[in-house]
């Protein structure tokens, strides 16, 4: 029926390819599958139908549960046929159908029969199928046969059983572990693959027994492994053993290194590569150990086979990150790879060269790369650009050729990410190399003349505004900037206006001309552009709205000291009124919402009798909440609120956590209470605080919670007075007191009479870190150098044994409660030393910066050198005190 149609298509289009599966349809194939039920099985026909079913599955078609079951049942009938080809297909389709456990029973007897068949192919495949579909109970029944199969004379059967063992180990480890004797025998097998599979399984069985693995590796490295695959595996196990040993403090000659080194002379390339990689990845590898590995990789670099070149250059690229000197010998071979047909190889070669290259080779390298850049994809280009940036930082003298290169590629076609990488690199170079500034700025100017990315244009304009005015001839940039005002969209125009204003302010000679230009912008079609122009004109004109030069400088160039999110919420809360918006009222705390709080908030609407839902988290929320309580309104501005500290175990009757609010002369504890018993209503909930271990504090006020129904959180407060501006510390013990009333859960009504009760809470501490606010700085080095060096306090501390450097650093950050800067809180794995930069504001609005250097010795003892700079010497001392007592 379909044939005439197909023919017609062919007439139209000769290229339409013939396919035996053309127009194949699931429904029709499922119909065809009924031939499996025929009393006289036609093996050929059945094989074809199975192939069609497999084809459908392979194309992503899915069978419904019913369809799959039906096919499965009819397939099982085919076990009657003696045709081996058909049987092979039956095995395949059963694996693909992955029948459910209750269906499996139908085939197990057939498969078990095949497992003991005389035909090797039946045995091997029946094992693979059976192990794929059975569960633990059935496995115990066939365990005996599997053990036999492992030591079967036929390697195919043996491999099938071993590989199945590897899969089964995940689900039924205790059973597979009983086979180790047989598996051990497999290792002695003459067949290469049986040995490989046996080794994999035996190691997997023993992996948790360090000694056994070490013994296994020890005996095999003496040379009885035949197949390259097994040898690769052995190398992997060996490096694992080496790692374990060095972790356990064994020193001296590295064990098994000789074995790895001997594998570099193996005849199979995959083994050589595996060994070379293992050597380069050794912990703390020495250059003497590296040399032989690098030498074989160097040979691979000139291989005619792309896979070998790729493998070698990929490995060398990694080595270059840690041991650039070791790789320099390969530079000549690597340079010839820049023109490699395979772009992955070429890119890896370039980035490796950029890491290892020396000053004299830079220019030659740049020339070669230029030819190469035009025909690779953006993702590769970005890798290259980033490598060039780090090269430039390494060899500042070579900035000229590197800058030329960057500006050339900047002019070529490319996507946003690529262009941004280039611009970022140029900016980095300008920042780090003063000589490069003028040419770099001009390159950027030329770029924005024809830049399709608004984001990049505004960034560059902003950067120009900062760097441009302090160059030798600022006037030459004006043309580029003013052109933006004519030719670009509103966002870029607004940015250009700001930049112009900065020039006008900084360069007295340009002021009149800039004023003229800005006046023209007053008629712009966009609000923001007009507003900015008007604003800057008045700043430049000095017509009295802005008082001093210092103020306008601060205004134009000063950083925004508050986080943008906080600024946004403050502005939203601001009611237009007589009183002007005061930027100083914006909280400076970097906000991080505690998760638990967030969850609790969105949980339930508060009951009728409950107070109107107050925002209970976040700095703004706290501030609002506290200032709305008359008792606390007079405490002044909130300095800091701590994250909630749990005072009860999880899942107790009453869940209480506390937030510490620090004011200049007061501390307020906010107890967030939740009643988790549906049958109870709590009234007059109060917290009795015993401050006998906190001498400097005296209770000033408290506010009880009138009613605490089931599952709607409420707050009780206790306020303490403390000496103003002093970071007083102390320990407080808390008891929750309340009146319990029984609640009839069916009606929700509470009884009239209640019983007084109390509930012991955990102690609470006010620590020094509560007096430090996390405030980040954008440029730590600048901030650090701006502080007086005289006031620096340095001391050294031993932090004792720790698991890792990262753990020690986290402990110090938590102790100080300061903001880590420039991502220095993360430590590269297995680093032995690290410097962490912290910043914060101490109570009394004193800026504090900390530079903490950590070092770890071989016994994991950690030492810390702590340098503190603060606007006030006593504060720097206080920080040291915190650390000394922590």
């Amino acid at each position, binding site marked *: 029926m379909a*044939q005439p149609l*197909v*023919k017609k298509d062919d007439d139209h289009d000769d290229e339409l*390819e*013939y*396919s*035996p*599966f053309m127009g194949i349809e699931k429904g029709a194939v499922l119909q065809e599958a009924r031939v499996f039920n025929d009393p006289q099985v*036609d*093996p*050929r026909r059945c094989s*074809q139908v*199975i*192939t069609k079913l*497999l*084809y459908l599955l*392979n*194309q*992503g078609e*899915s069978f419904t549960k019913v369809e799959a079951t039906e096919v499965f049942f009819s397939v099982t009938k085919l076990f009657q046929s003696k*045709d*081996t*080809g058909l049987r*092979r*297909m039956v095995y*395949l389709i059963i694996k693909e159908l992955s029948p459910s456990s209750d269906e499996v029973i139908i085939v197990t007897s057939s498969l078990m029969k095949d497992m003991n068949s005389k035909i090797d*192919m039946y045995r091997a495949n029946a094992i*693979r199928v059976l192990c794929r579909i059975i569960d633990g109970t059935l496995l115990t029944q066939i365990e005996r046969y599997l053990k036999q199969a492992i030591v079967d004379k036929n390697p*195919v059967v043996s*491999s*099938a059983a071993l*590989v*199945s063992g*590897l*899969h089964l180990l995940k689900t039924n480890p205790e059973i597979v572990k009983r086979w180790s004797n047989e598996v051990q025998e497999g290792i002695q097998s003459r067949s290469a*693959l049986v040995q490989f*599979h046996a080794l*994999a399984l035996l*190691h*997997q069985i023993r992996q948790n027994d360090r000694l056994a693995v070490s013994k296994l590796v020890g005996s095999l490295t003496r040379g009885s492994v035949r197949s390259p*695959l097994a040898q*690769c*595996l052995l190398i*992997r*196990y060996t490096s694992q053993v080496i790692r374990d040993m060095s972790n356990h403090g064994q020193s001296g000659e590295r064990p098994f290194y000789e074995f790895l080194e001997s594998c570099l002379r193996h005849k199979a*390339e*995959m083994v050589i*590569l*595996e060994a070379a990689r293992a050597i380069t990845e050794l912990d703390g590898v020495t250059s003497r150990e590296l040399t032989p590995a690098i030498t074989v990789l160097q040979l691979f670099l000139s291989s*005619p*086979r*792309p*896979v*070998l070149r*790729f*493998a070698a250059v*990929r490995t060398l690229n990694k080595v270059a990150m840690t041991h650039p000197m070791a790789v320099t010998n390969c530079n000549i071979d690597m340079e010839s790879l820049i023109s490699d*047909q*395979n772009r*992955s190889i070429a890119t890896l070669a370039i980035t490796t060269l950029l890491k290892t290259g020396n000053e004299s080779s830079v220019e030659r390298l740049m020339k070669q790369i230029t030819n190469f850049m035009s025909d690779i994809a953006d993702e590769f280009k970005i890798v290259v650009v980033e490598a060039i940036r780090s090269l430039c930082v390494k060899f500042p003298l070579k900035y000229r050729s590197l800058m030329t290169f960057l500006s050339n590629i900047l002019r070529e076609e490319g996507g946003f990410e690529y262009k941004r990488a280039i611009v970022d690199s140029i900016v980095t170079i300008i920042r780090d190399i003063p000589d490069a500034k003028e040419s770099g700025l001009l390159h950027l100017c030329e770029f924005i003349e024809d830049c399709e990315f608004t984001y990049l244009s505004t960034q560059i304009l902003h950067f120009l505004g900062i760097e441009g005015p302090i160059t030798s001839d600022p006037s030459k940039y004006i043309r580029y900037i003013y052109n933006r005002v004519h030719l670009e969209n509103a966002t870029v125009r607004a940015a250009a206006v700001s930049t112009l204003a900065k020039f006008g302010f900084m360069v007295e000679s340009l002021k009149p001309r800039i004023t003229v230009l800005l006046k023209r912008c007053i008629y712009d079609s966009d609000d923001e552009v007009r507003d900015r122009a008007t604003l800057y004109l008045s700043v430049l004109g000095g017509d009295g709205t802005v008082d001093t030069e210092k103020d306008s400088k601060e205004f134009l160039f000063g950083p925004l000291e508050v986080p943008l999110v906080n600024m946004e919420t403050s502005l939203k809360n601001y009611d237009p009124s007589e009183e002007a918006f005061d930027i100083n009222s914006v909280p400076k705390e970097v906000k991080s919402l505690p998760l638990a709080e967030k969850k609790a908030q969105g949980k339930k609407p508060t009951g009728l009798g409950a107070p109107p839902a107050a925002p209970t988290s976040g700095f703004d929320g706290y501030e609002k909440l506290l200032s709305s309580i008359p008792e606390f309104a007079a405490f002044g501005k909130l300095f800091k609120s701590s994250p909630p500290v749990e005072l009860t175990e999880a899942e107790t009757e009453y869940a209480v956590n506390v937030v510490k609010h620090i004011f200049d002369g007061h501390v307020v504890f906010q107890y967030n209470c939740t009643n988790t018993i549906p049958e109870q209503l709590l009234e007059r909930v109060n917290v009795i605080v015993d401050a006998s271990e906190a001498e400097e504090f005296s209770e000033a006020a408290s506010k009880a919670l009138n009613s605490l129904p089931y599952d709607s959180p409420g707050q009780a407060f206790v306020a303490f007075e403390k000496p103003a501006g002093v970071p007083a510390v102390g320990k407080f013990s808390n008891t929750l007191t309340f009146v319990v009333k029984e609640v009839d859960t069916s009606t929700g009504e509470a009884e009239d009479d209640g019983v007084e009760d109390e509930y012991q809470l955990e102690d609470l501490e006010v620590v020094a870190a509560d007096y430090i606010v996390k405030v980040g700085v954008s440029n730590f080095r600048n901030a650090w150098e701006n502080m007086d060096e005289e006031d620096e306090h340095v001391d050294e501390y031993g932090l004792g044994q720790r698991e890792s450097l990262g753990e020690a650093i986290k402990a110090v950050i938590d102790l100080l409660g300061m903001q880590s800067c420039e991502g220095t809180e993360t430590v590269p794995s297995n680093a032995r030393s690290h410097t962490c930069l912290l910043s914060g504001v101490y109570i009394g609005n004193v800026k504090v910066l900390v530079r903490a250097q950590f070092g770890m010795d071989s016994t994991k003892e950690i030492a810390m050198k702590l340098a503190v700079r603060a606007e006030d010497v006593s504060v720097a001392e206080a920080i040291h005190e915190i650390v000394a007592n922590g």
Partner: protein
Amino acid sequence: MELPPKVKNILLLDSEGKRIAVKYYTDDWPTNAAKEAFEKTVFTKTQKTNARAEVEVTALENNIIVYKFVEDLHFFVTGGEEENELILACVLQGLFDAVNLLLRGNVDKREALDNLDLIFLCIDEIIDGGIVLETDANVIVGKAGINSVDPNAPLSEQTISQAFATAREHFTRSLMK
């Protein structure tokens, strides 16, 4: 921790990137859509390269992919980024040679589709659940091609009805061309 070399998938695509036979061994691509997207990326990325003489290699999304093309067939083997690419290449070569033997040297899309059962068996014999089972093409062919119904076998070895079926099939095929 698992140390044995692992293959993540084997792909056999045609010259337009369409599936002929694929097999995935990990859950990195949980849905058919994810699989197809991966195949498309791999195909587009390697399409313009010349992988006819030698096995080629590339890195993609934390995976290493080795590949080889012949006629309108594209063979791929994928492994994790830490994998030894020479082992992957060895698997690919095994697959490639085995298919070549099974199709008696006529390796193209049409032959592959005509003998899709053999291709499926061949893949099944090379990798079992991600673990390398066999890489020697002759052994693979010995196992996959065992007693396969050979359409070119002498007619005397077939029953009358089988012979009739074969003849009918040859006839329809020639009609459809």
